[in-house]
């Protein structure tokens, strides 16, 4: 990055920065004003199936990017490839201008690109606090030559503990500090994993389904935490199926289907994209079928939709048919 660019970004509040993210059109594979990750021709096939086949993708810096797509679209595989947990069959990819081809996963993490896992990984037989401490970087006591002498790592350990306490409080895990991580619930483990990844003080946090299994009340505070990461200068890339979350916090959405990037853009725009609706969202993703309001809404939509009117006049009208049926059932 050039120096003038650095100076420009210094005075920007990342929370309110509303300059366009892409340079030019919001097309799949478009160039970004300030990319942190650039992937080119990254492919990975398992047997005959192309799990990932990304022609060109840039992740914008200081933004929250959501990666969405149907199951099996290759989102997690792309995560694995970017973080060195899996090796692509071909392609180039770089983080902050450093090529990551052939770089092992722990070095990727040290560069500042830290991930969480879809299937949560906590160290069950370590306490929550020890899990957190394990995340911290630059602990000299982690070297065998210094491990024997507490004088050489004791002070850093105190800093780490203080940092961990702050994070645990934020994630509402402070009461569980001394419990074994294995005693946490699934949602709490998600939180612990995310908090632990922040102990590394990463530049890019990659969260694989951070909201899966977290209760609604906690979801709200977690969303705020993720937004705040941006204020602290971090970049976030996350995979999520919860469209509300995507709408609320993402600045940019990348849609994958069958290994390819099919659409990119700000959330509002992407969700109206017919290709995305076809591949992932479905035509009536806005409708909550759980309540009567939702069904009426859907009905209105279907009536207006030429294509869904097939056969009889009544086709597409759900509520009037549904209700007598229910009574019959009782």
């Amino acid at each position, binding site marked *: 990055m050039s120096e003038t660019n650095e100076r420009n970004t210094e005075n920007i509040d990342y929370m309110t920065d509303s300059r366009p993210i892409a340079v030019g059109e919001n097309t799949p594979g478009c160039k970004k004003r300030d990319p942190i990750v650039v992937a080119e021709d990254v492919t990975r096939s398992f047997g005959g199936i192309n799990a990932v086949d990304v022609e060109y993708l840039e992740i914008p810096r200081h933004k929250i990017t959501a990666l969405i797509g149907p199951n099996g679209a290759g989102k997690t595989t792309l995560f694995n490839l970017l973080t060195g947990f899996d090796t692509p069959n071909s392609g180039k990819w770089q983080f902050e201008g450093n090529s990551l081809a052939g770089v092992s996963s722990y070095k990727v993490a040290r560069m500042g690109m830290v991930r969480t896992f879809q299937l949560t990984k906590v160290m069950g037989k*370590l306490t929550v606090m020890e899990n957190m401490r394990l995340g911290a970087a630059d602990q000299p006591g*982690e070297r065998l030559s210094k491990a024997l002498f507490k004088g050489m*790592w004791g002070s850093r350990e105190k800093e780490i503990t203080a940092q961990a306490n702050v994070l645990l409080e934020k994630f509402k895990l402070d009461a569980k500090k001394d419990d074994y991580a294995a005693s946490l619930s699934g949602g709490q483990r998600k939180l612990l994993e995310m908090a632990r990844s922040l102990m590394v003080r990463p530049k890019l946090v990659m969260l694989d389904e951070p909201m899966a299994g977290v209760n609604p009340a906690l979801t709200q505070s977690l969303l705020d935490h993720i937004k705040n990461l941006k204020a602290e200068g971090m970049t976030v890339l996350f995979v999520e199926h919860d469209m509300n979350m995507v709408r609320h916090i993402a600045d940019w959405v990348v849609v994958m289907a069958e290994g390819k990037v099919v659409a990119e853009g700000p959330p509002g725009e992407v969700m109206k994209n017919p290709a995305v609706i076809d591949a992932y969202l479905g035509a009536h993703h806005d409708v909550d079928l759980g309540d009567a309001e939702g069904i009426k809404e859907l009905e209105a939509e279907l009536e207006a939709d030429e294509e869904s009117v097939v056969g009889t006049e009544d086709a597409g009208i759900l509520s009037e048919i549904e209700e007598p049926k229910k009574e019959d059932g009782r």
Partner: protein
Amino acid sequence: MDFGFILSSALGELFSPTTAAYALAALGLAVHFGYSGLLNFGQAGFMAVGAYGFAISTLSFDAPFFLALLIAVLCSVIFAFILGIPTLRLRADYLAIVTIAAAEIVRYVVTTNQLTSVTGSANGLAAFEGTFYSMNPFPEGSYMGMNNRDFFIRVVGWGLVIVCCVLVWLLMRSPWGRVLKGIREDENAVRSLGKNVYAYKMQALIIGGVLGALAGMIFTLPRGAVQPSNYGTELTFFLWTCLLLGGMATVLGPVIGAMIFWVVLSLTQSLLYGLIESGVVTWLTTVQAGQLRYILVGVALMLLMIFRPQGVFGNKKELAFA
């Protein structure tokens, strides 16, 4: 039956040099399996490497004691590298297969007739302990019923056990030990936090292996002979028994486990012999009794795993989530 004798010989086992050797080797296994999750089924191989490394450098090259000791330790480090480089990138089970095979390879290599001039083949090597006993600071006489040689080897053996226990304890409470425990739980998670998992596993394998090599030396010195048959697979499994008896992820566990193991072996042996000699048990010969006690060890291990899987010192809470 002379219960006084039975008890005193059992108590004698408590601090015998063999018990010290078992304690050290089991401590090495605790570093491997208890703390790092490395399944090493070839600890007998590390002990053999230590014992033969010491004996061969003393006999073939006239090395002084400390040089021979250093060579033995270096050999075990090299052995750990040979085992670790191909397998530590793979899952834990592969290391188990490779170590058990490697320990057997070591045993067969030293048994080969081609190498008789160096290793003594199946007869093994003898008369290499002179450099050790020449350093004995204790003048001749009786020390708690032992002669000065027996007393010296016990002091050195148990001194070494104490030093190694303290070192392992210091290491395991450090951030280095924390990374190891993290690797035991989930190595991918540790990798995602920027730790070089491979290097940590290698360091743990070497440290545990060196403890095994030291144990091999303590094991052979009082015998004055090193023989390949002493380092069979069953030795490894006795060490695992000691480790599981005491508790896996503990420092004192392997030591106490080794003590319990040998006291129980001695008690069952003398009791059975006593019963046979006094005519109470007529359906067993003394040879069979000797074998029966090892069967009892197996039964005891099974009972232990069922009723107290965490061992004597283990933390029950840690197992609640296993």
